[in-house]
């Protein structure tokens, strides 16, 4: 049963969360965060195994791959901006990644 309502339920929760965020624009009320936590709570309360939910939302997960392909559009649109500063962007990203990596490594 839950198999068939998983996707509509996810959509419903997401749009409700979006509405909530538009009313309370606080980063803590990030629509994705709110939706994930409310769905987790729902699954736990109703004792629905994650496998059921996963099977029910196969449609959404399957769209993830084409969505990543579609990210080429913003990449192309930003090309000029990126190209002009490519050297600086790469260099600062490299340095920051190293620093973050060492931070995380030594904190552990």
């Amino acid at each position, binding site marked *: 049963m839950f198999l068939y309502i998983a996707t509509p339920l996810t959509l419903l929760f997401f749009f409700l969360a979006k509405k909530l965020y538009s009313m309370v624009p606080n980063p803590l009320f990030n629509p*994705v965060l709110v939706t994930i936590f409310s769905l987790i709570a729902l699954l736990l309360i109703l004792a629905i195994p994650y496998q059921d939910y996963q099977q029910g939302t196969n449609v*959404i997960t399957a769209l993830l791959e084409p969505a990543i*392909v579609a990210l080429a*559009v913003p990449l192309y649109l930003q090309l000029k901006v990126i190209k002009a500063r490519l050297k600086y962007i790469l260099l600062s990203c490299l340095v920051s990644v190293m620093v973050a990596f060492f931070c995380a490594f030594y904190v552990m």
Partner: protein
Amino acid sequence: MKEPSKKQHLSSNSSPNNAEHKTAEGPITPQQKMASTIKNILQLCVGLSIIFLFLAIAKLIISYFESTFPASILGMLMLFLALSLGVIKLSWIQFTGNLVLKYLALLFIPVGVGLINYFELITAHWLVIVFSLFFTTLVTLFMVGHCYQWLTKEKS
């Protein structure tokens, strides 16, 4: 009639050109509305076909070389290359691209709910996870910003 009007609503939100057009022209006739709906649906179909074509080609390449490189990333790079070379026109795919970007976050929700499987792991190491996530994110943001500012200042 219900379905197209729903799509019209979606599309008018995501394409700024369309909205501008509407405000400039004042109230639109049902014919115009219908025409723009059909145009948007066609644009969506064209964009989706292009995206799925690239994804399919990428998957074929990946399976041919038996590589573990994600097919979606390869597809994105190929589409980017095609856009840069002018094989694919931006106007063919821009509408779909904008629509997908708008609802991209929605696609990550089922994956996020998968956290439920790692409850024990998270409760066992929550302090480390929270600390490393927050701290390293802050450090990264700080470093990227300052490095970039310093580098560009140095030049000018």
